[in-house]
């Protein structure tokens, strides 16, 4: 297997230029919008109240620079702050989408990334429901689930993903995963020394879904960036659901036994031969 690779996204140096988004669109030949069957356009051209025009990851935005606009709570909104974060598929070590995918379309590649095989996907949308980050979306025109491929085609040829190559401030760093993790810890220590006490790593050490191959250095709580603090694997609910359902099944069987049991023993099987009224034979 090839070396495990990852993205280390340091939001403290992101300037919100969206070069990653543009590079992703260009390399993957993604359209600006998809014409939907109902005649509506799935992308606003301008959101009108933010520089964040595309608003979220989508079937045609596999990279998305979030503009998190914060204002002081007073009526004048005297102070404001912008946080910018280039969002992408996290390529989780324990990937919920891969776990639930009933067709086996979602696989882990030799680069330890998570990849959707388009010919196998049948558009059931279980992965959309399972992804705790809201990464995967359905393509209305192609009818399959879409997300970042980690530029699998480029990795195969020894090239870095388009977004990482385009990033002018090295906010998105690409490289071997363990090397990036070391770099991230060094960067965190550096920021702490500089007095940035709210800096923290998200997904670098296996605490989030066994580790994210695309992990982040954030300032403040993950929820501010639209990242769940403690996402869970979908299958963690299955044993309990099964247990309660089995108990309910037993209760139903006991209820039927109690309700319908004869007092006398029934003769050994009488075939139900007479046709039912209303059913022609």
């Amino acid at each position: 297997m090839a070396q495990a690779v990852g993205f280390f996204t340091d939001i403290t140096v992101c300037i919100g230029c969206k070069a990653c988004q543009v590079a992703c669109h260009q390399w993957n030949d993604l359209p600006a919008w998809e014409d939907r069957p109902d005649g509506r356009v799935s992308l606003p051209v301008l959101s009108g109240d933010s520089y964040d025009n595309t608003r979220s990851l989508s079937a045609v935005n596999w990279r998305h620079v979030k503009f998190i606009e914060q204002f002081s709570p007073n009526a004048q909104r005297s102070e404001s702050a912008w946080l910018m974060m280039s969002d992408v598929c996290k390529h989780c070590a324990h990937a919920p989408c891969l776990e639930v995918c009933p067709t086996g379309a979602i696989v882990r590649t030799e680069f330890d990334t998570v990849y959707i095989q388009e010919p196998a996907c049948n558009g059931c949308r279980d992965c959309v429901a399972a992804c705790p980050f809201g990464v995967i979306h359905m393509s209305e025109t192609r009818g399959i689930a879409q997300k970042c491929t980690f530029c699998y085609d480029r990795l195969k040829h020894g090239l870095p993903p388009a977004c990482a190559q385009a990033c002018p401030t090295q906010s998105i760093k690409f490289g071997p995963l363990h090397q990036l993790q070391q770099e991230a810890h060094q960067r965190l220590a550096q920021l702490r020394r500089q007095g940035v006490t709210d800096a923290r790593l998200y997904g670098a050490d296996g605490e989030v879904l066994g580790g994210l191959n695309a992990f982040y250095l954030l300032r403040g709580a993950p929820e501010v960036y639209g990242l769940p603090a403690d996402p869970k694997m979908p299958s963690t609910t299955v044993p309990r659901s099964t247990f309660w359902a089995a108990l309910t099944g037993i209760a139903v069987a006991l209820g039927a036994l109690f309700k319908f049991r004869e007092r006398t023993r029934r003769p050994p099987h009488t075939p139900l031969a007479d046709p039912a009224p209303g059913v022609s034979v």
Partner: protein
Amino acid sequence: MNLFVADPHWYGWVVAYFFLGGIAAGAYLLACLIEWFGTDDDARLARVAHWIALPLILLCAVFLIVDLHRPERFWHMIFKSEVTKQAFAEGFPFTATGWRWAADSLMFKPWSPMSSGSWGLSVFGACAAVSFLVAVRPHWRAVRWINRPWVMHAVRAVGVLAAVYVGSYTGALLSATSQPVWSDTTWLSPLFLASSVSTGLAAMVLLARWKRVGTPEARHKLESADLWAVGLEAVLLAAFLVSLGAYLEPMMFTVSGNLLVFGTVLAGLAAPLVIHRVYGERGWSQAAAAVCVLIGGLCLRTGAVTVNAELLARGPAAAAGISPEQTRRVGQPGADPGNRMPEVPSRTKLPGEP
């Protein structure tokens, strides 16, 4: 409650499948249990379940296939598409290599409810088909061969397990996601099973009345069993609501949440009990109670399947339990940017644009 997820858009077809599939599974389950435990009169009455289980489950299969964005690939749920294609490319079934590929072509993930559910549905469909033939065409030669005690016991045994599975896995499927409400509880699965049983019994009661099947005593037993199932559903609904804890409040700020709770309680639980208590054994009251149970079951499925979308549309502020009036919409100043896409009206196309 994770409100940073995307909405899978499981709406009408899924609701219809959960409701009708639940009726099929619940009716089949009860029919098999009655055939085992009950008198011959009861068993004759229970046969109405076999008339509906197969048609309903076939209809459900159509709904599920239509709901896929690529319906022609529905078989990918059961077979690994690329391995299967490779098996045929290698000459399956005429070559050893083809068989080796084919041996690896089955797609089964026991930990993924949608994958195991596809198998559960297939097994249930097969059992329902056998029981349907035995109930409707008992005189056919092949059916006479099947209609032997040991064969039918085996079919019922497998069918009962498959029916419990089909009735309950839909809840486990919703829980095995990262969606708000769905993934915050593990009680959807037993609740859906109880709803399957109550709605399945209600369908049997209605069908038995309509076709005048069975003795009045047997019909009475069936009708009183439906009340028992309604009681079980009430207990499980309470457990479901308690299990949501603090997330109950944001859920009750949604239309779907209210439909789920009050629709189910009023139509599915309270109304049948009141009708039984006030109007007793009159013929029409039994039918009315059964219709109420069916409406309650539909409310439960509709509310449960659509509640996540409504919470997601509200955005992350919904987690704070803020009332809709206080929640700013995306686009208003200071609104939470959220993690989703607002819909915009259709754009006027430029001249010459395809």
